[in-house]
């Protein structure tokens, strides 16, 4: 589908303002945005990717940003691979995404599944947009979220659905310097990048490998004015002496429930800043922002008379708006919006007076510092241990990451050999070889039995 009036991310960035001071920075580069969106590069690389499906699988966030600017409106589909995607999932991603080329900033490793298609190792300067003013393609943007089986779900958006919530950033205008603790390849981080680009501001990228103090130091040196992260990111930041160095005008939380304690703490710490928390998910988009200093959100937001319609059904929040994802990618993928166009967030809502509060997830998903963990996925690995009868994985409240994964394990009655400590150690090493660190139980308890409900399912306590 081609349209003459379609605007690409690069067009929107260009139109937002030609201030030569606009920049995008990471730990090693500070590039003027102007040269990144003008036709200064060779552009032949992006030109050769026209109408193709491209997996952006880079170490540096900067590479991903420049690829988005170069390829939106050019490629048929861009898959934005998060930094922690396990190599085991790549063959599925490449086939379900019909990937024709992989764009990376590192050469492929030995037996790299990504090398089964065209593999392009590029440097930031290679990623100039193609020079022609040809028609813009309606590029699909694929974002990844975690699924119950461990395989990622691939969520289909477009530049339009993603930019939907950014309107207000346009009003903030030029001079704003945005930053986020998030990786921009996750929905929450991408929202901040789009606010910077489409709102006429600048962007400072974080780096997973960088200690928080150093990131905050860079944010301070670049005079960041608008900064976002999960409540866990902020709890961690406030433990760093460098938190005093930034002078934000706007502090935003998303990705986890913002409790009253962290809201109060941030308002006291940054008295000149507006402290807001947003509700958003990769599938449902941004539903609302609240900046009245109170946890939860006003009940009057639950209405279907607004562009972002909210509904509560079976206790969970549902959202209908032009910002929700279009669907999931792949065969047999569940359809996303229901018959009325609503996306179920799975977040349970409790109303007290004229305020609504989040009361956990329906499926027992554990949120470790903004990263979602499905208990079933961890249990499946624990249950592989020959002496394990059954296991229950749940979240335990934690002051640093909001929640942390813990496990209760029932040993087989026939199992007599082996001390409990040895078995715990073996279970941990199974988990460590299967999962990134945030999914590995911080604590394992050997118990005599677990509650099984009438449905025959493990009785899960809502985290």
């Amino acid at each position, binding site marked *: 589908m081609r349209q003459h009036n379609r605007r690409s991310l690069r067009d929107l960035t260009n139109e937002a303002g030609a201030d030569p001071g606009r920049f995008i920075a990471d730990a090693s580069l500070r590039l003027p945005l102007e040269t990144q969106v003008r036709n200064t590069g060779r552009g032949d690389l992006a030109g050769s990717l026209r109408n193709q499906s491209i997996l952006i699988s880079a170490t540096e966030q900067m590479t991903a940003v420049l690829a988005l600017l170069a390829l939106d409106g050019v490629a048929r589909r861009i898959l934005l691979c998060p930094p922690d995607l396990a190599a085991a999932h790549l063959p599925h991603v490449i086939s379900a995404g019909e990937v024709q080329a992989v764009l990376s900033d590192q050469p492929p490793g030995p037996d790299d599944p990504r090398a089964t298609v065209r593999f392009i190792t590029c440097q930031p300067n290679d990623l100039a947009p193609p020079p022609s003013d040809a028609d813009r393609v309606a590029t699909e943007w694929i974002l990844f979220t975690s699924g119950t089986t461990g395989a990622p779900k691939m969520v289909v958006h477009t530049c339009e659905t993603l930019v939907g919530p950014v309107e207000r950033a346009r009003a903030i205008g030029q001079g704003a310097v945005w930053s986020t603790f998030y990786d921009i390849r996750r929905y929450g981080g991408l929202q901040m990048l789009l606010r910077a680009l489409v709102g006429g501001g600048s962007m400072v990228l974080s780096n997973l490998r960088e*200690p*928080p*103090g150093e990131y905050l130091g860079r944010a301070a040196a670049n005079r960041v004015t608008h900064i976002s992260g999960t409540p*866990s990111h902020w*709890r*961690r930041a*406030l*433990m*760093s*002496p460098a938190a005093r160095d930034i002078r934000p005008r706007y502090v935003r939380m998303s990705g986890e429930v913002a409790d*009253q*304690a*962290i809201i*109060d*703490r941030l308002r006291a710490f940054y008295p000149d800043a507006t402290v807001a928390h947003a509700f958003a998910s990769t599938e449902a988009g941004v539903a609302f922002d609240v900046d009245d200093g109170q946890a939860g959100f006003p009940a009057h937001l639950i209405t279907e008379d607004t562009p972002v319609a909210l509904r509560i059904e079976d206790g969970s929040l549902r959202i209908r708006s032009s910002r929700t994802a279009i669907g999931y990618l792949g065969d047999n993928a569940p359809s996303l919006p229901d018959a009325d166009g609503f996306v179920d967030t799975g977040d349970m809502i409790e109303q007290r007076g004229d305020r609504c509060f989040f009361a956990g997830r329906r499926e027992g998903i554990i949120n*470790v*510092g903004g990263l979602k963990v499905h208990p079933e996925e961890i249990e499946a690995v624990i249950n592989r241990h020959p002496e394990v009868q059954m296991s229950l994985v749940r979240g*335990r*409240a*934690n*002051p*640093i*990451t909001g929640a*942390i994964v*813990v496990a209760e394990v029932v040993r087989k009655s026939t199992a007599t050999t082996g001390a409990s400590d040895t078995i715990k150690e073996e279970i*941990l090493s199974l988990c460590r070889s299967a999962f990134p*660190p*945030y999914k590995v139980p*911080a*604590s394992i308890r050997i118990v005599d039995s677990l509650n099984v409900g009438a449905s025959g399912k493990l009785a899960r306590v809502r985290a």
Partner: protein
Amino acid sequence: MQADSDTAPAIRDAITATFTQVAEEQGKTLLPLTDDLALMDSGLDSLCIAIIVARLDDELGLDPFSSGDDMILPVTVGDFIKIYENASA
């Protein structure tokens, strides 16, 4: 390991032992622990600190961060130990 929660040195020892153990498990290089060292500069990331808090809850039966809306966030190793010592007092 069961620490005696009546005596402050036992708490300090349990905390330093847990720091060392978690750093080793997570493949992190832990700097020598002094009271002035900022937690976030110790070589541990926030997941490590979160795991340490969960382990200390198991081992000492102390979760000093869980009580009330008054959120205290420790900046240094000394702050962290103090919070546990106060909780056991």
